[in-house]
């Protein structure tokens, strides 16, 4: 299979142990942090809320509630622009003087302590799914699809394989790596619970061969549970759902479909750990591990961050920016979104903040396509990116569709290798917007 090998730059934050972000003065909980219907705020302004209280209720099946990630007082609702460009209502919570948990106690509550892998038979599948739904779990790998939807059993389409995704193929990001190193037990326990809920017959935890230590850590934690740990070749985008199912199961997810269509469910390692926390400890998804990295940041770190903290709080905790910092990327540099200001709240699906410098983001001037075909060589979905991009540019949607524009997942491999510096991904996105509706 194809793909690219951008410089990994994982060394910046790889060895940094997970650190707990000091409780910020204020968090802003976005009411839409997932794919699906937005939540509805349940509190009036100036209501006291405790850590873990529901702040927004899920509306509809494909939705997930949001919870207070600190104790404090709610403020008046406002609107924030999330990294993906959506303007979303947010509920601010001003921190109370006294916080029930902080520092080490908070880490232990979220990821530490014991995570039994035996005696899980007493958890009924429905109970697990309910707990996951109430905890507001969404995919922590980035797409933020509500987890309970994935785990709900469906007679027509039984789930055979549960894949736990620890590939983390984006450069710079090490949040999943840090989690696998420091907290393999909740990942394993969560994987077993998800397996019970979904009724899967096999569980495979996947990682890449640049993370062998993480694989070893998981193997030890998974001993005797029947979970297999699989080490895949390092490449971008190995961690994409479609790439993962091909690499591990040798089966392709149909275009426009879900892994469920081939009897598989893919959960990120962070989602697995949060599943264990939700089911075993009854705690909602209020915190996540976030990598702060890049040459533009003074000290790269892996942080345990309350959902809703601003990226500015996160940057301050890492010693601030260097003057050459030029681009803030929510996520990794291949698929992450730039943010124009650091005053953006961290969402459940955020995996990191990569701060790039001027020298790193400087792009050569765009020249004409010489049809060298390198984009075709690297496209992991077997597309012809330059044709789709040029068709989109010329507004020839029929041609773009003939070249399967909708199959593109915008991984960025094509634009990464393009010798002519053509913004292929941007043009393909433009084409998707221009597609006739329906």
């Amino acid at each position, binding site marked *: 299979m194809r793909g690219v090998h951008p410089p990994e730059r994982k060394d910046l934050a790889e060895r940094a142990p997970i650190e707990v972000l000091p409780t910020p003065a204020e968090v802003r909980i976005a009411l839409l942090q997932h794919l699906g219907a937005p939540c509805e705020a349940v509190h009036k302004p100036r209501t006291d809320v405790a850590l873990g209280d529901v702040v927004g209720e899920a509306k509809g099946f494909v939705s997930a509630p949001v919870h207070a990630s600190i104790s404090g007082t709610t403020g008046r609702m406002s609107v924030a622009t999330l990294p993906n460009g959506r303007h979303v209502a947010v509920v601010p919570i001003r921190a109370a003087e006294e916080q029930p948990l902080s520092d080490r106690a908070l880490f232990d509550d979220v990821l530490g302590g014991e995570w039994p892998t035996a005696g899980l038979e007493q958890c009924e599948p429905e109970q697990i799914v309910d707990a996951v739904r109430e905890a507001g779990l969404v995919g922590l790998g980035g797409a933020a699809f509500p987890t309970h939807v994935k785990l709900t059993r469906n007679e027509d389409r039984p789930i055979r394989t549960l894949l736990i995704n620890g590939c983390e193929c984006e450069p710079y990001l090490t949040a999943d790596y840090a989690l696998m190193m420091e907290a393999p037990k909740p990942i394993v326990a969560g994987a077993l619970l998800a397996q019970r809920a979904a009724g899967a017959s096999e569980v495979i935890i996947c990682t890449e061969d640049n993370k062998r230590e993480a694989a070893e850590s998981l193997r030890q934690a998974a001993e005797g549970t029947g979970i297999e740990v699989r080490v895949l070749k390092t490449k971008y985008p190995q961690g994409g759902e479609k790439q993962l199912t091909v690499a591990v199961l040798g089966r392709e997810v149909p275009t426009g479909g879900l892994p469920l269509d081939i009897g598989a469910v893919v959960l990120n390692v962070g989602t697995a750990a949060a599943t264990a926390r939700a089911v075993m400890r009854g705690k909602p998804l209020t915190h996540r591990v976030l990598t702060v990295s890049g040459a533009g940041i003074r000290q790269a770190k892996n942080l345990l961050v309350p959902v809703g903290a601003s990226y500015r709080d996160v940057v301050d905790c890492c010693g601030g920016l260097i003057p050459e910092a030029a681009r803030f990327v929510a996520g990794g540099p291949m698929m992450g979104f*730039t943010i124009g200001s650091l005053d953006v709240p961290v969402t459940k699906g955020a995996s990191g903040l990569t701060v790039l410098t001027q020298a790193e983001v400087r792009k050569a001037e765009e020249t004409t396509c010489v049809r060298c075909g390198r984009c075709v060589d690297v496209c992991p979905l*077997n597309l012809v990116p330059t044709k789709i991009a040029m068709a989109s540019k010329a507004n020839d949607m029929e041609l773009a569709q003939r070249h399967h524009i909708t199959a593109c997942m915008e991984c960025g491999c094509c634009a990464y290798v393009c*010798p002519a*510096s053509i913004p292929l991904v941007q043009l393909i996105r433009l084409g998707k917007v221009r597609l006739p509706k329906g």
Partner: protein
Amino acid sequence: MAEGKAEKPDAAATAESKQEAPAVRVAPSPHISKTALTTRWMMSDVLVGLAPVVAMAVVLFRWYAVVQIGLCVLTCLVAETLFCWMRRRPTSIDDGSAVVTGAILGLSLPWSAPWHIAVIGSVVAIGLGKAVFGGLGYNIFNPAMVGRAFVMLSFARELGASAYVTDRSQLDVVTQATPLTIAKKVAADLAAGAITVGDAQVQMESTRQLWPLFLGNVNGSLGETSALAVLIGGLYLCLRRSASWEIPAGVILSGLVLAGAADRLGLTAFTALHHVVSGSLLFGAFFIATDPVTSPLTARGKFLFGLGVGVLLVLLRVFSGYPEGVMFAVLLMNATTPLLNRWTIPRPVGGPAPQPEKA
């Protein structure tokens, strides 16, 4: 959104934001790119690949090669500048494509071509081959081959088979006809009943050895004689992915098969292997047909393109009036590139999207 956002009022944050605000930009992903890889870099890679071929040409043809290739490169650069100026576009000679066109055109000409042919061929290559279509990336036909076809048809005598031969040179190789010309003549004479099979064998004696053909110690166009030099440079390009291996593989495969068939049917005086190592089959396969702009994008398309070039070139060698057919084979296949691209759209991972197909 990038710069307009109000920053926090406290002093430290303001100082910091003043530093960061002007520099921060939003942009679409991906945010990093393989900066070392540029069009210019690819073109210089082709020149590196051409180096052994040029070196061999200079060894065999001495100053003739130096003058011919130098003149073509120089004229191409001048023509590129000229046409950019006429189109009121910024000059594009620094992308390196004009140098590559000039080098390939020069290498495809005989040592004896007079200077005005090199100049006219180069101007036509850049002008009619490239500039009229809109410049690099938009041309349909291989510019060097357009230029060569133009001079080939305009100056039939100066570029015909006899132009390669002279007995007044210190260079040994040029006192003999090119191997393909000999083979062509023998086959024609044999078919016409002018000579017997025995005569044919005697006449083919001088080219029966594969080794000189492989090393290049024979007469021919400047760059085509040495299969060895072409293979070294060509394999380098394929390994660097500056040329796609599917194209030369296709050319050689179909060339071997079809030439073998022609040999069996007695249509040619050469065996399949002789056909592959003689003439510019290999040079064309590795350096001319692989021009990315005028060859297909998909792996399957490239292979089919290569097969087509191989088939056409053997057909031209056997049935046309010319001893060699690379140039016309490549130009004809160039015309099919858009079709090949359309016919070989790869199946995406996961299959085509379910959507109502229009008839």
